């Protein structure tokens, strides 16, 4: 069992797909129930993984590999393996994925048509996300990455609002460009290294003994090429994160797609970018990461400020959240740019924390939208009167997002900034400005929606039902758990980070 | 009394160019078919000239040209047949009027 654990975890959503395929379309109740239940399987498995994870061990755990493809070159063959493994970096993200997936499955109850297809696609996306985090092989990473994109395209295009098709197309093309660039780098690495295993590539690129690092040896990789690969990877993941000039797909998608879809996207998918920056950019090219850390930091600051300023002027809640996501992902970049343990921890904390909070907030928006038919602040207002629970939790979530101490947002932002102040204090100081703005726009939006005069037609709306409250509570408690007991995350991370990023300081 | 090979090749080249020009610019479908025949005949001249005066004179050039002639005939026959059926339906042999599909 232990041998196949990760494989089972990765493909566990497919069980639900299989079952759903046999449920007739005419039983929406069964479909929905089955859809939610199916997400519980990976959740349980992920929790088991967390429980059994050995935080002290260095490197990957539960490693498994199978020969998949052999590329014949002359008489010999270069293998591409199917290999899985988990370490302190991917484990929290795996758990995050399953949690968000389950919550999103609940949020998807508000979907109004074609539940069967929705849940099938949804589970395929979940499989893709899990696969991305369990793969220790670039090729496999890429394939699972694509597995998240294509079903997402369908989900955005079929279930959403008026302009959904354009949004999905935009999403597809942006991410297509990103993955295309990624593929270039992966294939280049494959050709240069002769392997696609992330660990082996890291060894070959960083170990001083490796012929790749000794000039005049065959296979030596000059710095220029390394820089090129590094930048290409950066661009590829920048689209995913997204870093500012590449963020437009996200605005459109967040505006038009169904909230349940956005929960996955905002909660997990965009984290893949940050994850890959650590996994690949920082691990493969630590020198360049170091040298260009200022650039990354500047990009991060731009993200924070740009996102915050624009979030400030949005009336549309979803758009506001989209800009807020941009802003928050900037903090991830800041943490990475610090190039020290605190910074990296902060970045990962921020990813998890933002994942949870963003999911929560979109869930709230979904509930509000379902009831009022709008998510525009101007058309809302005074909701606290008719739905106090929703309003209350929304307020709490906003505070968590703004980085209120005691919640996860605070820890992550704190650690990121501490890390960056150690190396680039000026940039860190500018970035910190963004935190203030965050509080401002979040409060503006939340208060605008919940307080003030209520509109006539909103007075009789019902509050959240018990089953709708469960996900909120779960998410909120996780946010608070990380906020007051960060060790749940930091413990497995500690040893792993040292292992992943060779040049990382103390 | 022997003619240098370049003159044969030159004739072929001129013929080929006339054919190509005609095939690309003429409006009348029959003229286009004829232009193509012209190009193919340029090839035949080339082949036969090479077969006699080439670097390695041998008969395969002539054999090749036999096949070229046959194939050209078959192609022209098919082309004409199609043109006839086109003409029956559209009552034109002008190529610039064959524009039903541009979009």
């Amino acid at each position, binding site marked *: 069992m232990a041998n196949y654990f990760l494989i089972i975890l990765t493909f566990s959503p497919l069980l639900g797909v299989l079952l759903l395929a046999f449920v007739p379309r005419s039983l929406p109740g069964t479909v929905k129930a089955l859809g939610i239940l199916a997400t519980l399987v990976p959740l349980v498995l992920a929790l088991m993984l967390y429980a059994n994870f050995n935080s002290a061990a260095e490197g990957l755990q539960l490693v498994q590999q199978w020969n998949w493809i052999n590329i014949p070159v002359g008489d010999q063959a270069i293998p591409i393996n199917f290999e899985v493994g988990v370490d302190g970096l991917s484990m929290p993200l795996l758990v995050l994925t399953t949690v968000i997936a389950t919550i999103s499955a609940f949020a998807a109850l508000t979907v109004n048509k074609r539940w069967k297809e929705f849940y099938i696609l949804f589970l395929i996306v979940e499989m893709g996300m899990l696969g991305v985090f369990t793969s220790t092989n670039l090729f496999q990473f890429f394939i699972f990455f694509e597995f998240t994109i294509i079903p997402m395209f369908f989900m955005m295009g079929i279930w959403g609002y008026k302009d959904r098709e354009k949004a999905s197309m935009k999403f597809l093309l942006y991410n297509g460009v990103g993955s295309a660039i990624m593929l270039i780098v992966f294939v280049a690495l494959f050709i240069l290294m002769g392997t696609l295993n992330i660990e082996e590539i890291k060894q070959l690129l960083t170990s001083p003994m490796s012929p790749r690092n000794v000039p005049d040896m065959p296979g030596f990789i000059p710095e220029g090429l390394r820089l090129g690969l590094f930048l290409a990877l950066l661009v590829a993941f920048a689209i995913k994160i997204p870093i500012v000039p590449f963020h437009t797909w996200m605005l459109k998608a967040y505006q038009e797609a169904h909230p349940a879809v956005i929960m996955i996207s905002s909660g997990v998918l965009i984290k893949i970018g940050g994850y890959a920056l650590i996994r690949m950019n920082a691990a493969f090219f630590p020198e360049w990461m170091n040298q260009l850390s200022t650039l990354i930091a500047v990009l991060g600051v731009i993200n924070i400020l740009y996102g915050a300023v624009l979030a400030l002027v949005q009336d549309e809640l979803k758009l506001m959240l989209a800009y807020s996501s941009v802003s928050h992902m900037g903090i991830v970049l800041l943490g990475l740019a610090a190039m020290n343990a605190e910074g990296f921890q902060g970045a990962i904390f921020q990813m998890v924390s933002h994942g949870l909070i963003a999911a929560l907030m979109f869930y709230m928006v979904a509930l509000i939208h379902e009831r009022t038919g709008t998510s525009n602040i101007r058309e809302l207002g005074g909701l606290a009167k008719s739905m106090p629970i929703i309003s209350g939790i929304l307020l709490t979530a906003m505070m968590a997002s703004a980085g209120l101490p005691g919640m996860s947002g605070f820890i992550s932002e704190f650690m990121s900034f501490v890390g960056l102040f150690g190396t680039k204090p000026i940039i860190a100081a500018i970035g910190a400005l963004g935190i203030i703005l965050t509080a401002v726009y979040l409060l503006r939006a939340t208060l605008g929606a919940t307080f003030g005069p209520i509109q006539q037609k909103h007075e009789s709306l019902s509050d959240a039902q018990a089953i709708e409250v469960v996900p909120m509570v779960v998410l909120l408690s996780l946010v608070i758990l990380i906020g007051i007991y960060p060790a749940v995350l930091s413990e497995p991370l500690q040893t792993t980070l040292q292992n992943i990023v060779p040049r990382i300081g103390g | *009394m*022997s003619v240098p090979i370049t003159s044969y090749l030159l004739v072929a080249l001129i013929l080929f160019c006339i054919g190509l020009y005609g095939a690309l610019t003429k409006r009348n479908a029959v003229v286009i078919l004829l232009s193509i025949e012209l190009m193919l005949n340029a090839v035949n001249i080339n082949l036969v000239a090479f077969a006699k005066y080439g670097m390695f004179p041998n008969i395969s050039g002539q054999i090749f040209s*036999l096949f070229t*002639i*046959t194939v050209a*005939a*078959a192609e*022209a*026959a098919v082309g*004409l*047949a199609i043109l*006839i059926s086109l003409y*029956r339906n559209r009552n034109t042999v002008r190529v610039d009027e064959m524009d039903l599909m541009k979009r």
Partner: protein
Amino acid sequence: MATLYANNYFLVVIFLSLGVLLPVVALTFGRLLRPSNPTEEKRKTYESGVDPVGSSWVQFNVKYYIFALLFVIFDVETVFLYPWAVAYDSLGLFALVEMLIFITLLIIGLIYAWKKKVLEWN
């Protein structure tokens, strides 16, 4: 050998030029002798004595084209029969078999045309 070859074709050229020359000379000579007095009526196209109606360059029966196509195909196939016939002695039995196949295919082509009523006039 080369002179023989060239001379043979020189003769051919002589014949062809004579073929051109004769009409040219005869017509030029005739021009000096014959009267020339063209009038409208004379130069009118003949149409059983009445004024001609329209141009005669009109759409023609497609039958002719189809026979032309048939001719092209069969005539060109003889291109292969001639070399085969000339070289028949040196090729052996196998060439016979091959040509049997070839001619059989030709005959099938003919039967095809026959069956499709292409060979009918009218």
